[in-house]
C-alpha cells in the first residue's frame, strides 16, 4: 500500500511557501508542487537569482521575498518544480505532469494557492499581436531581463505604475501611460481612506511611483475612456478619449492592466463552491477564516481566495497551515489560536487597506463588460460579443450552455481568460446578479497535456516515511 503525505500544497508563491514552512516545521509531511522551475510565485520570481545586474531596481517589495525563499528552501517540505498539477480528485489524489511523465500522489489535506492572474481587458483589438498584459511585461523582466522599448501602458492599479517605474529605472523609454482610473474614483474611495491611514508607508510608495513616472516625462493621459486598439495583423495604434479630446497614439506594443483576479481553474475543477465578490468584482472559492473550502480537506490561501497581496498571502498561508496541523492532530486548538491571533490582527489591517485600493482602482464597467460587438471575448476560439449574443438569443443563458452553442471557453485556456467576462456579460443580458449566472463547469486537465506524457503513470510517496502517516 502506498503512503500518503499529510499535506499537499499546490503553488509555491508566498502563501504556499509560508504554509509549507509552518506545516513542515511542526511535524507534518509536506509536498509542494509548482509548475515553475523555482519557488517564489509571480511576485518573488527569481528573487535570489535575478537575470538583472541590480535587482534592487525592482523595489524592496520584491527583494524582501528573498528571505522567505531562503527559509522555504531550508524547510523539510519536499519540493517538486516544473510540476504541473492538472487534477485533484475528490478522493484526495493529486495528478501532475513533470519531465515527460504523469505522477500521482495522495495527501490527507490539500492546500490550493495558485495565486492570481490578470483580469481580462476586453476592448476592441486587445487580441492583436503586440498587445500584452503589464503583468507579462514584468514576468519577462524578472525571468529573463527582457523589456520592450517605447511601449504604451494602459489601465489602472498599482502593478501598472510599478512596472513603468521599473522600466524607467532601467532606462527603458515608455511612450505613454493611458490611465483609466476615473477622476471620480479618488472621491468615491475616500470613505475607505481611514482604513488606509495605518498603512501610510504603502500609500507613500504608491504616490512616489506616480511621481517617478511624471518626473521622467512620460506623457500621462488621465481618466481615459473608449479605448480601441487598431491594427490589421498587429497592433499599430491606440485610440481613446481623455481630457475631452480624442487621441490616437502610434505604437506596436501595448501593455494592458486593470488589476488581478483569483486563478480559478483548479478550484473550479475540483468543484469547490464559489461566490461572487462584489467588492473585487471576481469569483472566489467560499472559505472560512482558516481558509477551509466547501470541501473539508481542501483549503485555499493567498490571492486564490480573493486578492490579498503578497503580505496577506504569507499570513493566510500560515493560518491554513496552523489549522491543517490541528486537523492532523499535530497541534492543539489552543496553540493554533494563540499563534493565529497576531497573524489575524495584521491581516485585518491589510484588509482595510485592500478595501481602499479596491475602491480606488475598481475597473470600469465598460472595460469589463464589452459593449462593442466586434470585441473578442474568447481569445482561444476567437469569439466576439456579437457571436455570443447570437448564442444567448438561441438559449445559451448560462456559461455552459453558451459554451456548447458557441465554443466560447472551449479552447486551451479552458475559459481562464474569458470566464469573468462571460459571467458579467450574461448577467447584464439577463438583468440578473452575476452570482445567479455562475461560471463554466471545468474539465481536467486544466492545461494542455501531452498524450504520450499522459500514458506514463507513476506514484510518488513521502521520502521521509517516518514523518508520513505510518506513525
Amino acid at each position, binding site marked *: 500500500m502506498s503512503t500518503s503525505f499529510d499535506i499537499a500544497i499546490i503553488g509555491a508563491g508566498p502563501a504556499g511557501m509560508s504554509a509549507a514552512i509552518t506545516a513542515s516545521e511542526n511535524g507534518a509531511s509536506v509536498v509542494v508542487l509548482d509548475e515553475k522551475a523555482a519557488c517564489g510565485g509571480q511576485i518573488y520570481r527569481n528573487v535570489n537569482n535575478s537575470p538583472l545586474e541590480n535587482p534592487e531596481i525592482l523595489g524592496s517589495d520584491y527583494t524582501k521575498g528573498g528571505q522567505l525563499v531562503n527559509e522555504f528552501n531550508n524547510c523539510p517540505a519536499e519540493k517538486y518544480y516544473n510540476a504541473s498539477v492538472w487534477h485533484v480528485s475528490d478522493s484526495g489524489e493529486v495528478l501532475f505532469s513533470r519531465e515527460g511523465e504523469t505522477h500521482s500522489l495522495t495527501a490527507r489535506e490539500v492546500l490550493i494557492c495558485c495565486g492570481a492572474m490578470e483580469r481580462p481587458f476586453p476592448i476592441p483589438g486587445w487580441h492583436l499581436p503586440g498587445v500584452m498584459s503589464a503583468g507579462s511585461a514584468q514576468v519577462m523582466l524578472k525571468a529573463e531581463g527582457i523589456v520592450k522599448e517605447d511601449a504604451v501602458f494602459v489601465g489602472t492599479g498599482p502593478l501598472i505604475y510599478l512596472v513603468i517605474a521599473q522600466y524607467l529605472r532601467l532606462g527603458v523609454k515608455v511612450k505613454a501611460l493611458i490611465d483609466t482610473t476615473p477622476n471620480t474614483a479618488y472621491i468615491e474611495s475616500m470613505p475607505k481612506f481611514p482604513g488606509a491611514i495605518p498603512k501610510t508607508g504603502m500609500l507613500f510608495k504608491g504616490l512616489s511611483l506616480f511621481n517617478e513616472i511624471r518626473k521622467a516625462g512620460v506623457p500621462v493621459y488621465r481618466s481615459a475612456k473608449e479605448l480601441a486598439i487598431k491594427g490589421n495583423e498587429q497592433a499599430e495604434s491606440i485610440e481613446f478619449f481623455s481630457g475631452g479630446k480624442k487621441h490616437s497614439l502610434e505604437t506596436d506594443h501595448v501593455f494592458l492592466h486593470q488589476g488581478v483576479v483569483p486563478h480559478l481553474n483548479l478550484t473550479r475543477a475540483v468543484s469547490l463552491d464559489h461566490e461572487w465578490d462584489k467588492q473585487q468584482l471576481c469569483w472566489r472559492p467560499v472559505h472560512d477564516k482558516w481558509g477551509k473550502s466547501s470541501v473539508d480537506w481542501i483549503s485555499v490561501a493567498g490571492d486564490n481566495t480573493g486578492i490579498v497581496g503578497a503580505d496577506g498571502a504569507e499570513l493566510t498561508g500560515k493560518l491554513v497551515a496552523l489549522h491543517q496541523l490541528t486537523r492532523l492532530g499535530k497541534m492543539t486548538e489552543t496553540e493554533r489560536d494563540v499563534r493565529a491571533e497576531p497573524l489575524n490582527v495584521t491581516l485585518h489591517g491589510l484588509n482595510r487597506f485592500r478595501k481602499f485600493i479596491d475602491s480606488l482602482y475598481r475597473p470600469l464597467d465598460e472595460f469589463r463588460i464589452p459593449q462593442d460587438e466586434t470585441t473578442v471575448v474568447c481569445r482561444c476560439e476567437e469569439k466576439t460579443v456579437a457571436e455570443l449574443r447570437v448564442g444567448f438569443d438561441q438559449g445559451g443563458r448560462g456559461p455552459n450552455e453558451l459554451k456548447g*452553442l458557441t465554443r466560447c471557453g472551449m479552447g486551451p485556456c*479552458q475559459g481562464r481568460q474569458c470566464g469573468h467576462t462571460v459571467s458579467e456579460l450574461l448577467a447584464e443580458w439577463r438583468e440578473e446578479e452575476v452570482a445567479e449566472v455562475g461560471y463554466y463547469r471545468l474539465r481536467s486537465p486544466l492545461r494542455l497535456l501531452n498524450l504520450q506524457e499522459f500514458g506514463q503513470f507513476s506514484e510518488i510517496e513521502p521520502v521521509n516515511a517516518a514523518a508520513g502517516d505510518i506513525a
Partner: protein
Amino acid sequence: MNRLKPDVLIIGGGIHGCSAAYHLAKVGVQVTVLEKDWVSRHASGVNAGGVRLLGRDLAEVPLSKVAMKLWQNLDDELDADTGFRKRSLINIAADEQDMNTLYARREKMHTAGYQHETIIDQQELRERLPHVSPFCVGGVVSEDDGYAIPYQSTKAFRRAAERHGAVFMEGECVEQIRKVGTHWHVATRTKAFQAEKLLNCAGAWADKVSVMIGDNVPLTHSAPMLMITARMPHFATPVVGAVSRPLSFKQFENGTVLIGGGSKGFADRDNNRTRLDYKKLAIGAYNAAEFFPIMKKASINRMWSGLEAYMPDNLPVIGRSVNADNAWHAFGFSAHGFQMGPVVGRVMSDLITTGQSTFDLQAFRIDRFERKVL
C-alpha cells in the same frame, strides 16, 4: 411557457426526447417535455458525436440504416446546423485474428442481406489513413458514417419541435407519477402535469421513471470517458475505430481530435456528477499513439465523461410499457444511441399516434429480461 395538460408528456430532454417531441409536434400532437436539468445536459450533449452504422448489433441495423439516411439531410429537415459530416468510419484490424473476426462478421451480415460494411486490405487502409501504424493489416469501412456535434444536434431537434408547438420545461424533475382514471398525473417539485400519454426518455434515470410507471427494468448507468486534443494538423478524414482494442477517434474540421474508446469512469448519478478514471484514460491515450504515431505529439485539452444508461445486452428499450396502458419507453441506448435519435423519435411518434411501427421491436422489449415461469 407552461403547458401542464398536453396530449403527450415526455420525460427527458435528451436527443430521443427531443426527437420524439419533434415528430409528435409535427403531426399536430400537443407535447410537453420535462427535463430535470437542461436540454442536452447529459449523454446527449457530451457524447463523442459518432454517427455510426458500422458494427451494429443485427437487431439494431434496420433502425440504424434508416437513421443514417435521415442524418444525410437532417440539417435541411430541422433547418439547423447539427454539424453532421459524412466521413466514413473505419475499424482497424491490428492483426490476422482481427481480420478473421471481420470475415466472420461479413458472413453474418451478408446472410442477413446487409452490404454496407466493406473489408479493406492493408494498402487501402493506408490510402485512406496515411498516418496509420505499419503494423495494422486492414480494416472494415462503412461509407455513410461520420460525426455530428451532439449538443447542437439535440438543440436542433428541440428548436424544430418548438417551432411546431412543443413546449420544453427545464429544471423540472419528476418526483411522482400516478395513473388516475384515464390520465397520468405527473408531479415535479413545484408543478403538476396531466396527460393521457406518457413517454419515458429519461436516459440514465429511466429506470426510476419506469418503476413509477410500473415496469421493472435491469438498467445500470455508467460514465464513458472522452478526451479532446488541441488543434492538430489535419491527418485523418475518416472516423477511426479498432476491431478489438478500445480505440476510437475523429478529427474535426478545426483540427481538434476527439478520443473515446468506451472506457468508463465512475457515475455518481444522484449528484449529477462523474469522476474520471485517469489510469484507464491513459490506456486510451497510449492506444491512440500506438495506432497513429503522429498523435504522440497531441496535447489533451479536456477530459470528461457523461452519465449514460446501459442495458445488460447493450441494446436499448424501445416500445410500449408492458404493465400500463398509454406509456412508452425509449432509453438504455448503452453508449450508441446518438446516431439513432432521428429515427427513434419517429418510431415513438408512430407508436403513440397509431399504435404501430414499421420496425420489428421485439429485441427492444422492456420485459425481455423477465424470468420465464417454468
